């Protein structure tokens, strides 16, 4: 497993947060990126679209994907880098595939804004066994085939693109008096149902949110007591003053002060003494978050296949973007999905036999400033492009 990148890469590294400074191009500006006609995809255009893919969330902010641009065939391949599939937190690779679904959805949505419809083809060789046991450094997950489509109007395009840039994880206490507007509820259900094998359950009652909170507390505490998980989490948590690491989660993203952002990761790694109740407090914080939310949302895939899991990720990202449009923030609570007995409990009670695959809460932060918490860092896109992509032929624009 790799630790977050903390060293300067071989080429000059841009600041770790530059990915979020993505310009909103008009259709003319987009087309002008390459010497290509209106129905063609160029390398620069592909990279611009991938800039949005890069903004998608990932488990522990591992950003586990790599991309290969095949301009000749108007397709973009998504590859999973096994070194960023976390052995303790994500032993099956399911989280990484859900993250892949999120990145794919952003890519597809961005392409649609510039008149390109994406058709996703999952790699037929990909299996759970391959993901968890393959020796290769990267596995091709599949490719997005781009075809010509209608161009949305400028206002709709700008709204869709800005939404991807504005979306962020806010692991703060939400305002429990805020309710999900009926229109957002409808949009969430519609967004989830675009993936036909994905079901969305929305829990808004105080009793249900509390029940999810208790299960999350139980599962989080259970995971935190696992040394391997705790150490891994400690490796992926970064001090607030780390401005260079391009992966991992800074303490401030959890609301931690500078001192704790330095101490807690070391405590989790057992390099510093940890108070006996610290893990309990961390678990309880998740419960407080869930109880304070406007809604706890749970996505379940009817299929547990690799393709079905990616679909869950896509549905999740669509839901999150819709919530962002309505001014709602989100935080993900994964522990329940990773502790089998708690997952089974949630399935038997709250989920009426469905299995939870993604659990997230929506709400508006109680403290307005929390809505503006800093984004997580991202690697440079150039560092995520597979070298073999860069053939002379692929830089030539082709018709799509």
């Amino acid at each position, binding site marked *: 497993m790799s630790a977050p990148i903390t060293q300067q890469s071989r080429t000059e590294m841009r600041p770790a947060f530059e990915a979020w400074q993505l310009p909103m191009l008009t259709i003319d500006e987009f087309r002008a990126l390459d010497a290509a006609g209106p129905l063609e995809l160029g390398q620069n255009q592909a990279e611009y679209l991938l800039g949005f893919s890069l903004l998608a969330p990932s488990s522990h902010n591992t950003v586990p994907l790599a991309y290969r641009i095949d301009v000749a065939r108007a397709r973009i391949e998504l590859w999973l880098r096994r070194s960023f599939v976390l052995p303790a937190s994500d032993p099956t690779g399911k989280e990484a595939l859900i993250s892949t679904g999120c990145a794919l959805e952003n890519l597809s949505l961005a392409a649609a804004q510039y008149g390109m419809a994406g058709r996703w083809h999952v790699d037929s060789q990909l299996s759970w066994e391959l993901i968890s046991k393959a020796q290769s450094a990267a596995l091709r997950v599949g490719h997005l085939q781009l075809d010509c489509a209608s161009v949305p109007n400028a206002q709709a395009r700008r709204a869709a693109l800005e939404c991807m840039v504005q979306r962020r994880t806010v692991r703060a206490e939400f305002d429990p008096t805020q309710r999900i507007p009926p229109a957002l509820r409808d949009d969430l259900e519609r967004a989830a149902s675009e993936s036909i094998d994905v079901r969305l359950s929305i829990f808004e009652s105080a009793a249900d949110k509390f029940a999810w909170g208790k299960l999350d507390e139980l599962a989080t505490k259970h995971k935190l007591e696992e040394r391997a998980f705790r150490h891994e989490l400690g490796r992926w948590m970064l001090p607030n003053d780390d401005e260079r690491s391009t992966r991992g989660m800074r303490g401030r993203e959890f609301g*931690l002060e500078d001192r704790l952002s330095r101490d807690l990761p070391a405590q989790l790694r057992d390099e510093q003494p940890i108070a006996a*109740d610290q*893990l309990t407090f961390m678990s309880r914080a998740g419960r*407080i978050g869930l109880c304070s939310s406007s809604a706890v949302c749970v996505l379940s895939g009817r299929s547990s296949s690799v393709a079905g899991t990616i679909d869950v990720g896509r549905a999740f990202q669509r839901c999150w973007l819709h919530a962002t449009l309505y001014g709602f923030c989100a935080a993900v609570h994964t522990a329940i999905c990773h502790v089998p007995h708690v997952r089974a*409990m949630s399935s038997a009670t709250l989920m*009426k036999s469905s299995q939870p695959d993604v659990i997230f809460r929506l709400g508006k932060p109680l403290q307005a400033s929390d809505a503006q918490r800093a984004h997580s860092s991202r690697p440079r896109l150039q560092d995520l492009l597979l070298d073999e992509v860069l053939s002379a032929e692929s830089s030539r624009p082709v018709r799509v």
Partner: protein
Amino acid sequence: MGNVQLTCPALDAPRQIAPDRQYSCAFPTLMALDKALSSSSNSPRLRSGQSLREAFDLEYRRYLELLAQAHSSDDVWEPDYGTYVYDRRSGELYLVAPESWHRLALLTSNAKLLTDPGGVMSAEEIRERLSDTVVGFIGASLGSNVIEGVVREMRPRIAKLADPDYLEATNLNRLQHGSLRYLAQARSHRTDPRNGFETRFVNKVELVAYENQLIDPYMNWYLYPEGATPENLDQFLLGDGREPRLDYVVEEADDLRIKIEVRKRARQHGIPVFMASDLGHRSQAQLQDFNAHSSAPLGFRVADAELLARLERCLSTGDRSHLFELVGAMLGEDFAVDEYRSWVDQIGEQPTSSIPQSGAVAQLSGALGGKLIALHRLGHRIPERVVVDTRRLTISVDER
């Protein structure tokens, strides 16, 4: 033979109740009163002019005549006297003495230990004053001990109880009436009775109210299984036409934000707030009489602004020390001594990951609650804070 058929509008169908589910409680209750009530010249005088003993004697004679008639009859087994109480949970039927006699029996042993400061109130007036007191309890773990103290001392007719949580085995060292019976609902409540993961928990408010109604079925409980929330707090405190206004609120919540919110609203509405805290070997009782002191601080000898700042720090920074700063603002900066101090400072071995709570001190806290609220209700001056140290065998009092 001997089955009772119970028909009641609240039951969907008549119930057949076998003799092993029938309990005649009226006669034993009256027998106990016969033994306890004094016929001496200082038997409490009622407004009717009779002494309490005289009133009882009349009632008892009437009952014994009914009992004799029933016994001599071929088809009557029991006098139709008192109130039938059907326990839907257990399927048991109780025949309970009339309200005034049943409730008198529950208080008789307290004699006239509780008096008003001037000693001018009659026993009947004291009893009415206490039984008409409406107390609302927020939090049912430690709170169940205060409930126990209040009902045993005051025997109110009405109480309210809010707690969103369910019973856990680790609560059983301090939760009154908790038992195996409530660690999970019966298997029949499962959707799939064979699914062991389908654990349906028992809400604390339901078990505490249920067990209390098995002692006093005439007592009315208003339950808030969703807990106290910003939305329902005014209804909890002030009533709404169907529910009465509180005379006292006992705040024993886990939710730190609600703890402060309860005090804010109670102060606004002039409702005294009682809180008992089990602090290691020490039990601490605090009565904030917002009825008499409408500008009293929300915390203990700390400005409101400081308290609120500590609350926000505690809930936003993730720093363990900020929790204890908040606790200090609510309880007094000297809240931790001896082994409890060692816990706070994490000195020495610490076997559990949650704040230590002594079962015996929880009971003591409940006793203090019952006594202090009853005395205050009768007009006695109660100090702002009382600390009983069961290890050092000391008591300290902080006057207002």
